[in-house]
Structures are given as C-alpha cells and as structure tokens.
C-alpha cells in the first residue's frame, strides 16, 4: 500500500510545482486513476483477509491482495517483478497455504475460535510498519516525477537482470546463501522424527 500512498504523495507534491511543467495532480491520467482504484481494492482485500472469520476465505482474499499488488507493479511498468509476484506468491505461497489449511483443518463457514487475543498488538504493529514505510517512501521521493511512458525502460527483464547482477550482486548472493541455509535447516528439522521408518535411517543416531 505504501506504493499507492507514495504516488498520491508524488501527485500532491507535483500539484504544487505544476508551474515547472510537470504533469498536474488535478488532471490525472487513466493509468493513475486505475492505479488508485486497484490500490483501494488491494487494501480492501488485505483488510478482509485479516478480519474474516472463515479460514479459507482469508487465504483466497490474500490471493486478491497479492494479485492486486502484481497489477500495481504492472501499471508501474515493472513487468518482470509483476509476473514473479504472480508466480511465487499467488502460484506457490498461497497454494502451499491452502494445502496446509486443507491438510489440518479447513471448516466451511465461520470458525468462532479463529480470533486471537493479540488483535490490538497486531493492529499496533501493522500501523507502525505502515507509518514507517510511508514516511520512508514519501521522504525518499518527495517531488520526484518519474516518467514511465517516455523515459528509459525501467522494469523490463533486461534492465532488472543488469541491475540485479551488476549493482546488487553481493546482497543477491548473501540472500541466496541465507535461503539455502533455511532450506537445509528445514530438511534437518523434518527428518529428525523420521528415523524409525527407514527413510531417514542415515542420521537416525541423532534423535
């Protein structure tokens, strides 16, 4: 959501500086209107996902929210990131989530015990995180106007790949190692209780 806010902030900021020839805030283009509408839809879906009492519905609203963010990326011309968002989050993470829900319990209808006493704390954390993000983004961009239509291409695979593997290659590698470590850790944890039925016999002594 911070992206939407940043756009609104950018638009507000540019309204003040229309004299310098940048596009105005009072005559938004179709893309900007669409961006705001999709942003509202995403926000609505996200709020519904955390407030609904129906477990599986929450997961499905999450699909809408994540898909909405993908559309926002697309509108910002970050095509590659948008498809990765769909592939990883909608295609894999939510499917995994639904799989977990169905495997454990996924009652149809409301679950009265789906609420948690931590509601106020969660709200506080969410509001704080949102405030920090919005502050940072607004402070970083202020009155910058990025021309997506006519400027140099910013979100294509080519540009993303170059930036990722030239400027950001060290963080990229560090993250890969972190993920690999998490993966190995997950395998070790899941094999620990498995020693007696033969498949994990190799490290059976560790139990």
């Amino acid at each position, binding site marked *: 959501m911070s992206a939407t806010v940043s756009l609104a902030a950018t638009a507000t900021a540019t309204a003040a500086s229309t004299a310098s020839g940048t596009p105005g805030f009072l005559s938004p283009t179709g893309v900007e209107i669409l961006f705001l509408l999709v942003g509202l839809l995403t926000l609505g879906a996200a709020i519904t996902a955390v407030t609904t009492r129906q477990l599986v519905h929450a997961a499905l609203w999450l699909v809408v929210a994540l898909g909405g963010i993908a559309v926002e990326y697309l509108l910002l011309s970050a095509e590659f990131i948008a498809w990765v968002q*769909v592939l990883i989050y909608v295609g894999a993470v939510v499917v995994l989530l639904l799989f977990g829900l169905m495997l454990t319990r*996924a009652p*149809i209808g409301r679950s009265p015990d789906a609420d948690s006493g931590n509601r106020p704390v969660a709200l506080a954390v969410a509001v704080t995180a949102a405030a920090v993000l919005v502050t940072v983004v607004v402070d970083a961009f202020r009155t910058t106007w990025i021309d997506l239509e006519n400027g140099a291409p910013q979100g294509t*695979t080519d540009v993303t790949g170059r930036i990722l593997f030239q400027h950001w290659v060290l963080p990229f590698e560090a993250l890969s190692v972190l993920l690999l470590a998490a993966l190995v850790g997950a395998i070790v944890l899941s094999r620990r209780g498995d020693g007696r039925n033969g498949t994990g016999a190799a490290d059976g002594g560790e139990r």
Partner: protein
Amino acid sequence: MDVLDVAWRLLAVLLAFLVLPLVVGQAEHKVMAHMQGRVGPMYAGGFHGWAQLVADGVKFAQKEDVVPADADRRVFQLAPAVALIPYLLVLIAIPVGPNGMVGQAIDAGIFFVLAVMGVGVLGSLMGGWASANKFSLLGGLRTAAQLMAYELPLLLAAASVAMAAGTLSLPGILEAFEWWWVPWQIIGALVFFTAGLAELQRPPFDAPIADSEIIFGAYTEYTGLRFALFLLVEYAGIVILCALTTVLFLGGWHGPFADDLGWLWTLLKTSVLAFVVIWLRVSYPRLREDQLQRFAWTVLVPLALFQIALTGVVKVVIQ
C-alpha cells in the same frame, strides 16, 4: 498498434480458445475409441459421429446446476471460472507464426505463461474445498501436492531454453532458434512435457481425479455447465501445454516455407503433441501418489538441473 489491431488479435485468440480445446476433446474421444476398439457413438451427424460433440454440449447446458447444501456457495460457483480464465490469458502470449503473429508479445513471456498457468490450479483447490465432500477435499489436496512437486521441474526446464536463447520473450526465443537446439534441449523438452502433463493432471498423473479411488476428485460435486467448464479446462490445458512445448523446444513456426506457412507448422507440431498426450492416456496405468512424488523429486528435478548445466556449458563453449 491501434485499437482495431488489438481487437482483431484478441478476437483471433478468443476464437482459437473456443475452437482448439473442442477439437482436442473430440480427437481424444475418437483416438481413444479406436485404440481401445470401443467405438462408442457413431451415428450423430453421419461421419464418425462428429455431431455427438454438439449433442454433449446441449446435454451439459440442459442439466441442472446443483450446489451441495453444505457447500460454500460463492467459492464453489466461482471455481470453474478461476480455473478456465488463466488458460485464455496464456493463449494471448503464444506466438503462432513469424513477423508478429502473436496475440501480444510480452517481454517476460515465459514467466507470464508459467505464472498464470499456476493460478489456474487455484480453481481446482477452491472447488475441492468448497464442495464439502471428503473425496473432493482429497482431490484438492492431491492437486496441490502435485502442483508443488511439478512446478519446479517445469520452471527449470523452461529456464534452460531461456538461457539458450538469452531472452525470456517467446517470440524472441523463436527468433533465436536453430535446428540443433532440438537435440541439445531434448532432456529439457521431455522434463517440461512430463511435468506439464502432471500439472494438467492427465494420465498417468491423474491421481487427483482418480475415479476408482476418489470418484472425480475436486470435480465430484459439479454438474451441468460448471462441470463442462472443468472438462474444457483440461482440454484447453492440453492445447496450451502442447503449444508451449512446440514454441520452447520444437522451434514453433520454423520449418520449410516458414514465412508463409509458419502458423501451419505451429499447429501441426501442436497437434502431434496433443496426439501423444492422448496416446499416453490410453497406454499408461496411473501412478500411485507416492510414486508420483518420488518421480518428480528424484527423476525430473535432477534431469532438469542436468539440462541447465549442459545448456550453460554449451553456451559458454560456443561463445
């Protein structure tokens, strides 16, 4: 690109989407009938009972659309649309012929196609959960497990082609294609096709809809038009998978007289692959659920990784 051009392209894609899956469905009926020596209905319409397809359509439309009493109505009714629409979107990105004969050239085409195809499985999951039926839920679970296992080899195999071509765009891959890519990428092609079959839940990977174990999996409770839509999803999936394999591994429109007859080559290669899909259904028994998982993780993933290594080595050597 003006509005008329876009409209014309979208119309062509929609037309292909409405016609090709039905053709594949009808071909499946007839090919299976003759391979098994059980010819089935042969009278409607005269030649080989072709009009039976129309009759089936009318039958599906007339049937009552039943929603089980305990089902989650909205999710249950939405599921067929969620399953079908992604395939329609994917078809837009598949190049049919040379010189821009594609619905819409997408920069990260492979990613778009595989990402959107993965979304379609949500339809099966929604249907399986919302039916309030244990068989449906089991089918949904198996669908999810199968998708998670086979998405990885599918992506890895596609990544190998992207590495070879140096681009993620589907028309771009075809531009860069050389004939010797076919033997070079043959392992990747087999992995991609097999993993794709599993993602479509086609035999021999049809454990999620195994009729002798769990009736019809996620689709057990569906009737009438919604059931027909799920069947259509399966055939649309075959079209997409075969067209994608053609584009990525078999050179798409490349062939003699490609400038004039490129689209025909794409169609021809796609239909041969579709025939193979049907053939496999008739000739292989169903894999058990654990065999299915083991096959994905211990055979397909290593093979796909080997193909990526091979692609990398050859790419470095020839540069």
